[in-house]
């Protein structure tokens, strides 16, 4: 068993005429939380979408639990027990909050069959999910939709959780809850990969970090080492943490 649950090697992605990823090497250690940082347009979201098969890698390999998934369709990739929250959240606006979560709960055909204890945990983290349980998700505010999107991704245990900017648009109290949630998920054995612009969030949660620039990973290592090295932060990110 490899120490890395997910491993990208030399991944190139083209979107139309644009060559976005130029050979991404990324290793996500099993049971850890990996932060993917980098400037706007560096290729972070494209990397996540390529992992999920939403963009097709034109070159390179993507191995999940030792198996090459670069040629699989998105539904097959998700069925490998991977949850993904895209930047645009992917909320089904006409469905209720409950139905949005139910879609992701593979073992359940109705809300009654969902894991009640886990639902209680989610309600505690994200009060809006409980409050608007029977409301169309499209009626919620931007931050509330983000809560639903993350709740849907954690409604059942997954081996790998991938979230594109989890803290985006959320009030500070909810960001705090989310940090708690990710820490708990990690303790329960979930491997997590996050793209995040909120550096305090990144620093508090990240075990390992990969920094992208211009379609490549230009730095990878422990989060702690980056957090303690102001010169490295400046050269990689343009500012100190």
């Amino acid at each position, binding site marked *: 068993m490899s120490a890395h649950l997910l491993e990208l090697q030399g991944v190139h992605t083209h979107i139309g005429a644009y060559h976005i990823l130029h050979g991404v090497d990324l290793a996500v250690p099993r049971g850890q939380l990996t932060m993917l940082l980098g400037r706007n347009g560096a290729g972070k979201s494209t990397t996540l979408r390529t992992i999920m098969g939403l963009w097709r890698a034109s070159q390179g390999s993507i191995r999940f639990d030792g198996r090459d998934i670069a040629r699989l369709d998105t539904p097959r990739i998700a069925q490998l027990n991977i949850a993904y929250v895209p930047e645009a959240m992917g909320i089904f606006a006409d469905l209720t909050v409950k139905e949005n979560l139910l879609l992701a709960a593979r073992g359940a055909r109705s809300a009654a069959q969902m894991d009640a204890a886990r639902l209680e945990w989610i309600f505690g983290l994200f009060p809006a999910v409980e409050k608007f349980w029977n409301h169309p998700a499209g009626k919620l505010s931007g931050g509330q939709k983000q809560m639903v999107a993350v709740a849907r991704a954690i409604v059942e245990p997954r081996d790998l959780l991938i979230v594109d900017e989890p803290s985006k648009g959320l009030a500070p109290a909810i960001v705090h809850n989310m940090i708690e949630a990710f820490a708990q998920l990690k303790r329960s054995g979930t491997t997590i990969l996050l793209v995040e612009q909120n550096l305090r969030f990144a620093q508090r949660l990240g075990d390992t970090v990969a920094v992208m620039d211009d379609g490549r990973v230009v730095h990878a290592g422990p989060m702690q080492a980056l957090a303690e090295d102001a010169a490295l932060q400046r050269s990689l990110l*343009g500012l100190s943490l």
Partner: protein
Amino acid sequence: MGTLATKDLTIRFGGHVAVNAVTCSFEPGTLTAIVGPNGAGKTTFFNLVSGQLKATAGSVSLGGRDLTGLPPSARTRAGLGRAFQLTNLFPGLPVLENVRLAVQAAQAGRHRRGLNLWSLWSDHRRLTARAEELLQAVALHHRRDAAVASLPHGDQRKLEVALLMALEPQVYMFDEPTAGMGHDEAPVILELIRELKKDKTKVILLVEHKMDVVRELADRIIVLTNGTLAADGPPAEVIASSVVQEAYLGAGKEAA
């Protein structure tokens, strides 16, 4: 130059009162931050002021002029500037063209018209120069030729700010202007807002969750919870209040 005022501004969606009798005025030369839990009605309040949503009750006025019955386009002409939604852009056109169109729209009527090739050409040059200047100001100039649809999220937000600037409004309404931006990019937008503040004739409203940004920029903070105005005052006082500490920051929790 005028004060933006809302009186008993209210909107109901079925049984849900999203904004509930908010009476508030915003003076020129003041930056007011609007904070509150997710779903408190902050964006809805913006939509009511800009006219994207029609109020169930209450009124909106600018400089004493009642805007309540006006559609968004007329409110924009009256001086209310709300960041464009990306759905209003031309996604297939380059960034520069989108900004130039906004500059042109804002200046329509201010310049003479006529089928004179010289004036058309000089207008075009002037509009282009202004659009380029705005793109420089938001640090998006290097993307001037990219199609809007291809921009990453943070760059789209910068474009929204550039379009808002192009309108040269009396009232600037920013809704999380730095969301999705990298830590090396957000300061560019904050600097721009700081510059705007120096022009003492503008009313600036800012919805923002990043409390360090609020602390630094705001002259005043109002707090919305469940659609009602729960606090209003100087930043230090409002941040220390129990409504912010408990309902917003989460009492006993460290703010992220």
